[in-house]
């Protein structure tokens, strides 16, 4: 059995993200990191592999992105993936959700996984949609925002919060599961694993390698267009207290609340 884990390189959380107003795309030139939600997907894959309820032969990390996105794959491999696949092509630049789905589905099809795992959202785009998009392309069962997952009778028994409380859903394989960050506590990679990550096989694939139609991906294949970028409605900035002397801080908070008759 094979598990594919989708990972993404995103701007580091500490970096102020900005849009390049020329291209209307995210400026990715700064410090980048593995999308935090994806570390939970990798951990979920490793727990399935180590758990023994399913015979998992291989965990493959998959990404689509520029050359630098290799670093996200290396981190995924350091966390336990056996090898990785990098879909990298200038023709993919500017892909929206629809076009990204077409491209990622194609690379996943070439791997024929039994389970596809991914983080429920990326830290940059925050679209929450890729799991359900890929499931429809791949014709697999699917659930997103999963916070608990067990194997039962060869099925994945998943829990997640929906509109009315917790839902429990059993999915037959093959399946695409997008996980939330409450699902597990990702492990830290060992120094040995980090050092060894570069030696694990990494396949780089182009649009042509996969037989993708360039008109269906990238900006050409995108069905949405950002027509303008505006600042949000102005909100008066709040007051900030830096806590240096806690007694004084508390005094200030109480006075502030009292002034507004909130006590």
């Amino acid at each position, binding site marked *: 059995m094979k598990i594919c884990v989708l990972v993404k390189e995103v701007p580091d959380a500490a970096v102020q*993200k900005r849009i390049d107003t020329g291209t209307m795309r*995210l400026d990715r030139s700064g410090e980048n990191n593995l999308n935090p939600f994806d570390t939970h997907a990798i951990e979920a894959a490793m727990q399935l592999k180590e758990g023994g309820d399913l015979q998992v032969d291989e965990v493959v990390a998959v990404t689509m992105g520029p050359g630098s996105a290799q670093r996200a794959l290396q981190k995924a491999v350091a966390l336990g993936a056996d090898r990785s696949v990098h879909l990298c092509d200038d023709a993919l630049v500017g892909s*929206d959700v629809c076009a990204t789905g077409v491209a990622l589905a194609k690379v996943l099809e070439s791997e024929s996984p039994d389970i596809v795992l991914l983080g429920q959202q990326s830290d940059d785009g925050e*679209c929450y*949609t890729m799991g359900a998009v890929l499931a429809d392309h791949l014709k697999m*069962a699917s659930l997103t925002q999963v916070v608990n997952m067990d194997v039962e009778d060869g099925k994945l028994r998943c829990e997640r919060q929906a509109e009315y*409380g917790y839902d429990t859903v059993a*999915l037959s394989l093959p399946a695409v599961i997008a996980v939330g960050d409450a699902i597990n506590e990702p492990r830290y990679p060992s120094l040995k694993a980090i050092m060894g990550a570069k030696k694990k096989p990494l396949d780089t694939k182009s649009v042509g390698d996969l037989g993708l139609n360039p008109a269906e991906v990238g900006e050409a294949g995108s069905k949405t267009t950002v027509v303008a970028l505006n600042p949000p409605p102005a909100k008066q900035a709040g007051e900030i207290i830096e806590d240096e002397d806690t007694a004084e801080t*508390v005094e200030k908070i109480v006075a502030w*609340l009292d002034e507004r008759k909130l006590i």
Partner: protein
Amino acid sequence: MAGILVYALHDDEGNFNKNSLGALSEAAKLAGELGTEAAAVVVGDVSDEGAQGLGKYGVTKVYRAKNVPEGLAQPIVDVMAKVINDDGFSYALFGGGLLGFEIGAGLTARLSAGVTMEVTAVKVADGKLVCERPILQDSEVADVGYVSEPGIIIGRLNAFDVKESGGSAEIVDVDVELSEWSSKAELITRGEQRGADVDIEAADVLIGGGRGLGGPEGFDACEDLAGAFDNGAVAATRAVVDAGWYPYAAQIGQTGKTVAPKLYLAVGVSGAIQHKVGMMNSETIVAINKDANAPIFEFSDLGVVGDLNKIMPKLTAALKAKKG
């Protein structure tokens, strides 16, 4: 018909979701501006009366797929894809909610359609819909248009107000054959409540606790602090509810409750969008967090950068002393 199709979610008792009703109202308004009509899709056991009643929100037709179960996205993708293809809808609109995200995403793949999510407003420009979508932690708002039809619009929680504008809707029963893969997920239990049934919606003051509390014991300090106010209660973020630190009934946000107390005092809450949408209409927001870069400070009236373990007990004591 080049109209707008809206999915109306309902619970096991047949009550429609408030965000779905908001989406119906919004679709009816936009359809009026576009010179077209809005329609709803319902699945499962929905009575004639229940379906027709959606006409109140301005939709003229309700497509009902009785044989399709409510509660999981993939079968509903089959239904909506068929209705959109057969009757030529130009847009599909969803209120804020997890199923809307999943169904909208599925339609994106099935119909090669553009999708915009977390939409806070929709406007008409040159006879087409353009969505306002806040991005990068709400620091910018992108206006997103569609280059082809249909376009998929997934609203942010509480983005669309419920408005009654119409009368009764015509019911169109549809028989849909489900895709083979749409029946591979089975809903075993739906809407399970976990933990005590606490009431946070009636409180004037809410202490919202997040992961920064460090553990379930952090909520003891929150309850002490809530007790120092008149009519105070404790609320929680999704992260800590999922971790089992506090009951689900106290959860604020995307998959929890929406509240607007006089004072919302957030402790150890980072302020993710999914939490923000559930409490941003509070009259006053105060946040205590040790991370000066936490997004919650962007929309707090008073932000305190510091260690909540040091500040909270002293604040509780000071408030109690003041009340005497």
